[in-house]
């Protein structure tokens, strides 16, 4: 059979229609489409795609199973490496991971590995196929702090090894950024996230919500009083950054975290009690995935929406697919533009955002060309809402209440890259709490590595 250069296209909701609802944009493959796309895989002897996956899923094997229509087998193959495939298949930046390595990508489209993973996971859920519980039960207990991607991955792996695992979550729902950050139209909560977390519970993992480690209980108490033999800290990077601009405390200025939490976790877009701001014109400052999520959410709440980014389109850190979707939906991008002031009226509400044009200079430490302000280029954009999506940093609550836990200048926990071991024996860490804000799949990779590290540690104790 000749090589097919183009991947099987994936069905999506029409751009005009979806700009007015919170339903999932990408509809995913059906069985025929998945089998056809799986047929493009060359089943390389030395598969580069696996090296591009942070949790090393056996990609050619699961794709071979899809091709043979053995979807259940495909699910169990994926499950050996990942506990959250329906989520990863949706939100991983595959273009820079597995699919970025696929050999077919050299002369055409890479195999749509993410869409295939998603198909398998969705199929398994619809057919009530679930991961199996560990047969062997160990009597050692591990506490996991935080139920985001790192914590869930670590908990899932430890439970499969037979450990007694309990997750402590500060919010009222488990999932971390999967529930409060990533919007419904990219990652449905009830249909996808909740069942995926239920699968982790099914492995034997217990989850206690409303517990803020560092306030409700300390790491020391978990180890000394509640009998945990090891602790994994996957508390993420949840502290929002602001710019320190004049007018930034005005009414109508939000962190992306607040805006998205109200909408996603508190379901402000539905018939729930938490209110949310419905602006006529909203500016979102930033160019990452969070900025795209905030902008596309504001648009769906009825606002005309602008993205203000200080570098050019080529430097946008957001996923290509999300940028593409945002443009299709009618979001207007102001590149090489940086806010200098938020304009307000006498009642303290936002009336506009004063910006400055930028030009790109020499590359900076991150390798990206440094934006330099163009003098005298100030101009105003009329808006009644501003959402700051400038990145986040780790919350110092845990490090400041736990003896012997070292952090770096950015409040990130210091942990070994290989096994997640922190400076305190028995305490491991991974995900954004260690790296600062990164991706879902890198956090899962770190959770997985730490699970292996904890296993090794507990076998020695």
């Amino acid at each position, binding site marked *: 059979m000749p090589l097919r250069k183009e991947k099987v296209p994936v069905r999506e909701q029409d751009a005009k229609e979806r700009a007015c609802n919170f339903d999932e944009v990408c509809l995913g493959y059906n069985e025929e489409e998945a089998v056809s796309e799986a047929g493009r895989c060359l089943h390389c002897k030395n598969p580069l795609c696996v090296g591009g996956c942070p949790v090393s899923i056996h990609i050619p094997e699961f794709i071979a199973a899809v091709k043979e229509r053995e979807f259940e087998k495909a699910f169990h193959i994926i499950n050996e490496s990942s506990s959250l495939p329906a989520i990863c298949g949706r939100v991983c930046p595959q273009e820079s991971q597995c699919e970025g390595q696929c050999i077919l990508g050299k002369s055409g489209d890479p195999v749509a590995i993410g869409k295939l993973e998603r198909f398998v996971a969705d199929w398994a859920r619809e057919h009530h196929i679930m991961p199996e519980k560990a047969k062997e039960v160990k009597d050692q207990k591990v506490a996991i702090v935080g139920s985001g991607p790192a914590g869930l991955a670590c908990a899932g792996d430890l439970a499969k090894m037979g450990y007694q695992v309990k997750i402590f979550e500060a919010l*009222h729902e488990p999932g971390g950024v999967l529930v409060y950050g990533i919007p419904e139209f990219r990652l449905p909560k009830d249909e996808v996230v909740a069942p995926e977390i239920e699968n982790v519970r099914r492995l034997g993992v217990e989850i206690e919500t409303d517990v803020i480690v560092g306030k409700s209980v300390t790491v020391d108490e978990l180890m000394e009083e509640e009998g945990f033999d090891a602790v994994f800290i996957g508390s993420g990077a949840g502290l929002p950054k602001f710019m320190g601009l004049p007018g930034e405390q005005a009414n109508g200025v939000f962190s992306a975290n607040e805006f998205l939490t109200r909408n996603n976790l*508190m379901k402000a877009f539905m018939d729930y009690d938490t209110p949310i701001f419905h602006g006529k014109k909203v500016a979102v400052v930033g160019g990452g995935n969070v900025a795209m999520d905030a902008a596309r959410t504001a648009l769906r709440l009825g606002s005309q929406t602008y993205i203000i980014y200080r570098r050019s389109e080529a430097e946008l850190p957001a996923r290509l697919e999300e940028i593409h979707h945002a443009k299709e939906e009618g979001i207007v991008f102001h590149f090489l533009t940086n806010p200098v002031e938020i304009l307000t009226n006498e009642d303290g509400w936002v009336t506009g955002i004063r910006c400055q044009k930028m030009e790109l200079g020499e590359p900076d430490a991150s390798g990206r060309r440094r934006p330099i302000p163009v003098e005298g280029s100030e101009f105003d954009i009329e808006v009644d809402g501003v959402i700051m999506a400038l990145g986040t940093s780790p919350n110092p609550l845990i490090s400041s209440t736990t003896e012997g836990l070292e952090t770096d200048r950015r409040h990130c926990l210091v942990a070994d890259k290989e096994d997640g071991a922190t400076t305190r024996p028995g305490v491991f860490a991974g995900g954004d709490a260690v790296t600062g804000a990164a991706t879902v799949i890198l956090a899962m990779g770190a959770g997985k590595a730490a699970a292996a590290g904890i296993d090794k540690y507990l076998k020695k104790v």
Partner: protein
Amino acid sequence: MYRIHHVEKLTDTIYKMDVEAPRVAKRCQPGEFVIVRTDEKGERIPLTICDYDREKGCITIVFQVVGQSTEKMKQLKAGDAFKDITGPLGKPSDFVDEDLETLKKKRYILIAGGVGTAPIYPQAKWLHERHIPVDVIIGARSKDLLILTEEMKEVCDHLYIMTDDGSFGEKGVGTDKLDQLVKEQQEHYDRCVAIGPMIMMKFVCLHTKELGIPTTVSLNPIMVDGTGMCGACRVSVGGEVKFACVDGPEFDGHQVDFDQAMKRQQMYKTEEGRRMLEQLEGETHHGGCGQCGGEA
């Protein structure tokens, strides 16, 4: 689920509840708060911890019915439960970590406004139990808005009650009493703690600044998560941006930008007011609140 052991109606609009929350009860200190959510669709609202029983694993919360969520809370009876209670949150009051011997040489004046009496209570109790001199002024619009006066009497050296209309105690506001104590009776206080509506705290601070008394206030801005992840509760203190939920809620009152904080409190007021009217009046609600575009 967090079971309610006891409910007491303190005034027409203020309720007191003892609720099971063992993790909070075990560790909480004066000055800290919890976030509660009544049910699946409920919002997260912050409430100060008014008292606690570490043995029973219970905390006491006091709330005033001001909007949709507190209206829902009012419906709860003993035996019912909150969906979520999380905490303790925020930083404990500064005196909790002070050296006890130094503290005993200081004299405190606590000023409570309306429902702010509830968060003042655990502070007075903590200080009084450790034999630190403490006087309390409670101010309210009228007699029927006074709460916890009997309980407060037990935990301070002198209790002064003020009502705007003179229907109980003395006629006047809290700052009148403070002025009288300091200026006329030559009483000396080393520190003031003021908790109540924003506007009341602002005026207390104007007075204490003049009187030269260092003053702590407990701010009550809009909150969502209460753990520092969103910045909804941000306030300007001494020109710096602080998150009340993690850096506070108690701050140096002479450094707080009250005008900005009051403006921020208005943010969802119209929406909240509208929702409450809709809920109360149901199908009969057809505008008139001036916001929803309906006919008056």
